[in-house]
């Protein structure tokens, strides 16, 4: 009897052990699987990022260099009809265009046909006469002398030299838009050592241009900065005030619930709709000018407000209630409690939310198209009421251009935009680490 029960208890023990071992094995397998899913998804994400960056960098790196041709130019007084004593007006009136063409022709006397000559002129940027004129304006004493001039190569020349010259390319890979005459001239120039690639300062010091070799991002960067400044100045105080009021002062009733639902909804509204709203309200109703950073900033303010409000409210909610109790128990008024204790503790979270909202605003294109910030603007804006464009819109504009050189510029502008975004997000992380009180 006892033997029997002992036996059955033993077999029960054995069965329990077996089952538990099997369950444990299953559990381990499940955990391993889960870990691998995580690793796989991270690997996938990283691969996508690496692909994006290699693609953009390989395409855009070329835009950071520009081809120049070093040439001796004789500022012949007779051809220009100028002397070192000529006045500014006389210099401005002089025909630098024909002077430039003449000096090129003299260098290549065997080019006789009109087409060949045109090909020769087209190797250099169309602004070359103006650059020569500016040289003379800056120092009239160059008249009558021979100067070494660093001439900016035309985008077709530039692209050919950077990507095709001296390489054995065939078929589709051969992207040259140069004629045979031009290729020969380039070949001669390169062999004579006159051609050099330099860091492309034009890209950072010029604004948009029809000529790719003269197009730069300065105007777009300044436009972006002005627009973001307007956005920051308006969105941060409004959003923080809203968040504090809703979190700390507003009575909890149906109206505040309704407002909360609407704020959350607004955060998900497509940005182009904010653009339309801005167009209707700011431009059509209030009559503000088109294409200006002020209106762009207003529109982006509307767009980023929900983001900042939501993150600020979360930051305020995260402040431990014991701190509020302590302040209230000391006899601090509601406003004192909020200003002295809640706000300083919530500030890192609010700032993080703001910077993330700003980064979002920096990358926004669609709403700005609606208010006309898509115009071709050559001047760098000097204030918030000057017509301007912004980086993402500049990228959008260039990506639409047919010239191969603009493809390069597009990628380069994307790199600049990404740099700004990475800087802003790093700043957000740094600020949070710096201001966060772990006490």
């Amino acid at each position, binding site marked *: 009897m006892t033997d029997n029960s002992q036996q059955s208890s033993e077999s029960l023990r054995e069965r329990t052990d077996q089952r538990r071992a099997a369950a444990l094995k299953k559990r381990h397998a499940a955990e391993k699987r889960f870990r691998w899913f995580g690793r796989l998804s991270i690997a996938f994400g990283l691969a996508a990022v690496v692909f994006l960056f290699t693609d953009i960098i390989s395409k855009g790196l070329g835009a950071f260099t520009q081809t120049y041709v070093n040439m001796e130019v004789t500022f012949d007084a007779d051809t220009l009809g100028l002397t070192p004593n000529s006045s500014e007006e006389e210099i401005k009136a002089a025909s630098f265009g024909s002077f430039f063409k003449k000096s090129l022709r003299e260098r290549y006397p065997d080019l006789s046909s009109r087409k060949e000559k045109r090909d020769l002129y087209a190797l250099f940027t169309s602004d070359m006469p103006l650059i020569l004129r500016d040289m003379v304006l800056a120092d009239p004493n160059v008249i009558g002398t021979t100067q070494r001039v660093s001439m900016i190569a035309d985008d077709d020349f530039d692209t050919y030299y950077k990507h095709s010259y001296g390489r054995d390319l065939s078929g589709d890979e051969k992207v040259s838009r140069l004629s045979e005459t031009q290729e020969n001239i380039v070949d001669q120039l390169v062999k004579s050592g006159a051609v050099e690639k330099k860091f492309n300062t034009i890209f950072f010091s010029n604004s948009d241009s029809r000529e790719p070799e003269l197009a730069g991002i300065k105007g777009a960067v300044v436009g972006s900065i002005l627009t973001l400044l307007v956005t920051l100045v308006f969105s941060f105080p409004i959003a923080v005030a809203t968040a504090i009021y809703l979190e700390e002062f507003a009575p909890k009733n149906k109206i505040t619930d309704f407002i909360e639902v609407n704020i959350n909804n607004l955060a998900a509204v497509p940005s182009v709709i904010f653009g339309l709203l801005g167009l209707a309200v700011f431009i059509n109703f209030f009559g503000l000018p088109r294409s200006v950073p002020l209106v762009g900033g207003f529109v982006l303010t509307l767009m980023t407000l929900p983001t900042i409000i939501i993150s600020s409210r979360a930051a305020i909610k995260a402040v*431990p209630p014991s*701190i509020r109790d302590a302040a209230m*128990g*000391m*006899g601090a008024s509601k406003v004192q409690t909020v200003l002295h204790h809640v706000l300083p503790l919530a500030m890192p979270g609010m700032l993080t939310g703001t910077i993330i909202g700003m980064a979002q605003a920096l990358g926004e294109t669609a709403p700005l198209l609606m208010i006309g910030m898509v115009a071709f603007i050559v001047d760098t804006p000097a204030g918030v009421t000057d017509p301007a464009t912004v980086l993402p819109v500049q990228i959008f504009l260039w990506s639409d251009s047919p010239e191969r050189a603009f493809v390069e510029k597009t990628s380069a502008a994307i790199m600049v935009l990404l740099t700004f975004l990475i800087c802003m997000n790093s700043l957000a992380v740094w600020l949070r680490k710096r201001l966060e009180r772990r006490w």
Partner: protein
Amino acid sequence: MNNAQISKAEIVSETYQTTGSPLMDDPKMRVRNVDVFYGEKQAIFDVNLDIGKNEVISMIGPSGCGKSTFLRCLNRMNDTIDICRVEGELLLESQNIYDKKIDVVELRARVGMVFQKPNPFPKSIYENVAYGARIHGLTDNKVELDELVEKSLIRCGLWKEVKDRLDEPATGLSGGQQQRLCIARAIAVNPEVILMDEPCSALDPIATATVEELIHELSENFTICIVTHSMQQAARVSQRTAYFHLGKLIEVNDTSTVFTNPEHKLTEEYITGRIG
């Protein structure tokens, strides 16, 4: 069994009268017919109690009996809870503290509070003690403020421990030091009454002993109402003890009477460990 049923019947009756001696002559605070509601739910039923001058009165009772809620009525901390409603009369020196004319800021300067969990501000030790004086404008200059901070810390026995690191964050102190700092912060504004809501429940026994000693010393100048879960603590620090049960004030008596010879059956059951 039978006794418990009878006592329950007593509790349910709306017109229950507190046994013992809840009332006295010339009290510091007078509580009359106070009911507290959280929304529809009533948490405190018709409490009548006098709190004497410079006495330590402890409030004991099982969890959820309303003792903390009652304590928070005494300086209107319940105002911060939207659904909370207080009815009845609460007088501080014959002034109704729920009167519309009373500024809650001034009330809380007169009736200070120390909380269950030490909650120093995430600022320096100095700023913690100076904060009350700053917002109530108690001092004219830095010298006076320094003196006040020093005096308050000395009274809480914290001065020696922190005098060399007044500028360091208060959260770097140990739990017991933090709680004493909170008491220093409360007495820096020189209140008349100090409310303590289980001030030692987050502290170890040694820190508890220090705080209890401090309460004893402070009772010379202040009226102290302390809510506690520990009956030993109530017995050690207080002169009078009030026993709450399910929102009703069952018995108020001298502490020695409550713990040796309770008048009410429920009190007896609680202190002998049969309830709670």
